């Protein structure tokens, strides 16, 4: 993955000196499969050029339609939190947001939103690559629901940033990061519900696994006795 040159928030695509950097950003976003509207919004390139770029990189037309907005529960998966994959999904969103905060904090000058989104997304992929590869090699043909590690795509990451209100008023955020005091992991909580009742996904996963181990052991004992 190449390093994208830093783009400050004050930079505009109309600046002739920065045109090349914005084209690099457009290529990066298109390669990351960002929606065409997102590429246009951040880089100021024309719609036709964005389509041509998408065709050249992905060998097919860009998907039509608006950028999907989702809802906060989609990321916390509060309605389906007992499922292992749902818990892992919450952690994926939290990992992305956590990295976003760190990258933003490390910049001396306020960065361009598009640059920040793309560089954070690339860093997020790097941070989760090993785990994804681990699951892939464990059961390449038939991944179970537990082992299927889903990662955010860049459009979901963009929607997540809107819910976390990172670039607007943090108090209005519908999703917030909470740190587990026991295992130190950040996880997403939905501010519409009582945040205290939303437990750490790692601990919920652990409890689920322990319960399943006990159940399978007792089932094995019963079958041996029979």
């Amino acid at each position, binding site marked *: 993955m190449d390093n994208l040159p830093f783009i400050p928030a004050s930079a505009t695509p109309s600046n002739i000196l920065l045109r090349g950097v914005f084209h690099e950003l457009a290529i990066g976003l*298109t390669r990351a499969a960002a929606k065409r509207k997102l590429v246009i919004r951040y880089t100021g390139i024309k719609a036709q050029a964005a389509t041509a770029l998408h065709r*050249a990189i992905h060998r097919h037309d860009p998907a039509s339609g608006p950028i999907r907005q989702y809802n906060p529960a989609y990321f916390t998966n509060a309605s389906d939190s007992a499922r292992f994959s749902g818990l892992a999904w919450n952690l994926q969103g939290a*990992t992305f947001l956590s990295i976003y905060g760190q990258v933003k904090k490390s910049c001396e000058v306020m960065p361009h939103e598009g640059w920040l989104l793309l560089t954070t997304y690339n860093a997020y992929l790097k*941070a989760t690559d*090993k785990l994804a590869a681990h699951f892939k090699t464990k059961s390449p043909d038939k991944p179970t629901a537990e082992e299927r590690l889903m990662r955010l795509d860049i459009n979901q990451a963009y929607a997540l940033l809107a819910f976390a209100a990172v670039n607007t008023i943090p108090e209005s955020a519908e999703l917030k990061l909470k740190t587990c005091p026991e*295992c*130190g*992991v950040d996880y997403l909580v939905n501010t519409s519900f009582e945040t205290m009742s939303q437990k750490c996904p790692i601990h919920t996963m*652990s409890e689920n696994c*322990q319960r399943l181990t006990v159940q399978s052991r007792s089932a094995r004992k019963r079958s041996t006795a029979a």
Partner: protein
Amino acid sequence: MLSTLVVASRKRASPPAAGLASEGEDKVVAINIRLARHVHRELDKRMTEYLNLTTVALARFTPTPDDLASLLKRSAHKQENPLDVVGINREYLEYLRDSSHDLLAGDVFATVETGLTRAQAVALAHLSYADLQTIARHWPGTVFKFNGARLAGSKVVHSRAALFHTAAAVRF
């Protein structure tokens, strides 16, 4: 213009050489195992499995750029670290100096991986081997703060949940 950019992007789309990709990752694993051994002395199977999947360093560099500058300016040093501390300090400093070069070259992930600030990276990138040796020998104790709680936190949960812990705990 567009065609040139497209050609450039296709060139970049090719996967990186396997050796190079794994080399960077292994550096983090190697330093994490080395640091964990220094702190815990012996690592069990679960700890090793956990460390093999981590993507960020489990330690953070404590001296500020001013601290480093004032230490290197001094002609006489009161502090003399034991050999094992000098060894671990030097290894960690060498790893950080490499990562600082990546960070200054624009690799954003290096910030997440090491937790270095830009000012720390600038200071570290310009240090010679002799400077690293001086810091390793004369800094009061270890030059890092090891996140032992994170490793301990991974042990109290089920081994399968600990796998997810490796990728989710990216903040120190």
